[in-house]
């Protein structure tokens, strides 16, 4: 599903943030991506999501070499990937419901096809009462849950999450982890970037450890 071969990345003429990163992600797998702050977790997620190009090495996403992809080809692959950003990236002028429905709207689906699914998912993540609220009046935890709901609404084949439980209390954190596990059971590969050891300890999943730009699988 995902293959990194000797991938390196540097910003401009600066030092290499990632060096000789090589790993595979198999379909239906569950990984944690961890490491100290500034180790390059977000950068690695951005490479996985094709919003950055590697300075060297090869990246294959769903069997496609991302260096050879057109803008349209990248968009098609992104539709198969859900991503949760650390800073949520919700659109302030859309309601919670509209934000969550955005990936389906972009795919060209009709509202009648997904109306109930979006409402059900929002209820499941505890935002049933905040359906018509705008992001600016949501708390950090509520924004986090809305962002996760937006990432999973399209039943992605790969889910990338950057510190998804960083802004929520342990109860909601556990609930969100259950959602990720449930998705994983349904066939979605999951990569969660986190430095929350309590969260990682709850699952016996391989950990991709980033340190000094190098990646080790544990």
């Amino acid at each position, binding site marked *: 599903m995902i293959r990194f071969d000797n991938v390196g990345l540097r910003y401009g003429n600066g030092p290499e943030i990632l060096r000789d990163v090589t790993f595979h992600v198999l379909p239906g797998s569950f990984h944690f991506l961890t490491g100290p702050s500034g180790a390059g977790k977000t950068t690695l997620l951005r490479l996985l999501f094709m919003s950055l190009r590697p300075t060297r090495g090869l990246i294959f996403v769903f069997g496609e070499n991302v260096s050879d992809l057109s803008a349209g080809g990248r968009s098609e692959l992104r539709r198969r990937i859900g991503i949760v950003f650390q800073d949520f990236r919700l*659109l302030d002028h*859309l309601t919670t419901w509209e934000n969550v429905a*955005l990936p389906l709207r972009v795919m060209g689906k009709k509202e009648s096809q997904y109306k109930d699914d979006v409402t059900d998912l929002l209820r499941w993540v505890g935002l049933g009462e905040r359906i018509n609220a705008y992001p600016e009046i949501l708390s950090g935890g509520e924004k986090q849950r809305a962002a996760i709901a937006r990432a999973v609404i399209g039943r992605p084949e790969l889910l990338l999450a950057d510190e998804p439980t960083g802004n929520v209390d342990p109860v909601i954190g556990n609930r969100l982890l259950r959602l990720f596990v449930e998705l994983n059971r349904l066939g979605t590969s999951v990569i969660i970037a986190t430095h929350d050891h309590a969260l990682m300890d709850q699952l016996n999943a391989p950990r991709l450890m980033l340190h000094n730009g190098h990646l080790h699988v544990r």
Partner: protein
Amino acid sequence: MPVTLLSDIRDYPWTNLLTGILPVRVAARLPSRFQSKQAPIVPAASVAGNALTVVIAIMSFLACLTAGAVYMVNQSAQAWVNDISSEITVELDPVNEADIEKKMTLVSLFLAKQKGITEVKPLTAEDSAKLLEPWLGQSSALQALPIPRLIAVEIDRSNPPDIDLIKTALSQNFEGVTLDDHRRWQAEIRTLTRSAALGGIAVLGLVAAATIAVIVSATRSAMASNREIIEVLHFVGAHERFISSEFERHFLGLGVRAGLMGAVAAAIAFLLLPLMTHMLGGGTVTTAETQRLIGSGELDLPGYFLCVLVVIVVACLCMITSRLGVIRVLKSYA
């Protein structure tokens, strides 16, 4: 590109266009089928400001005025050409002619016998003097001047006479008689009409160029202020076509709204033009000259249709320019 454009037109939410054109308060009162169920992904307020609407409305107003004026000049010139092409004028030199009236009768009789001539109308000395009044004024001195005598001859346009033959016959039989078939005037009117049309096309070209420049600038500015939205759309898998359609829908609404404002203002100007021409005419002669150039100053129905055409062109220009602008900026982001 044409296939993409056609499918865009087919998929366009036309029922929502009305709400895009009307002011928000008015749009909110429309029946539910015209209301958009979901908020636009790119907020309208971040794309089309009032200043931009006013600029495009002014461009549309200028384009309508230019198109209408060229149309009026063309219609007037066409009517003039039609008028003079069915008429020829025979001129009798009054110098050294003791009995000019007798000669007028003889020439008129000669002309009336020719094939293809439907009417021969000799003008009196007073009629000829009246033709000079706008330039020389009413004066008894006109009587003393050797004013040429004229015979207006109407020809059958479906079965025209051999003008050259008549010209030769007149010069052989009568001394000091010339025939003017108005070809020189027709050529000059055509030149004038072509010049007016070319001038109009040049003005329309400048208006179109200015509109494109304004829209390109507005598109870039709208994209810069909505960069975060564009990024999120990219992350959720939106194609360039989807993103550009989100912007172009606003610019289409803006183009229709501003185009209509400009066209309505131009239509009012054309409706008031006859009154303004009369009020600001500056005297009988100036008014007569103006009317000769642009007719009565009233625009007919096809003329108003040109204003509708301007609205359509302005709206399409806004839509297509914004689309190309967005795609270009998206490629630069990539």
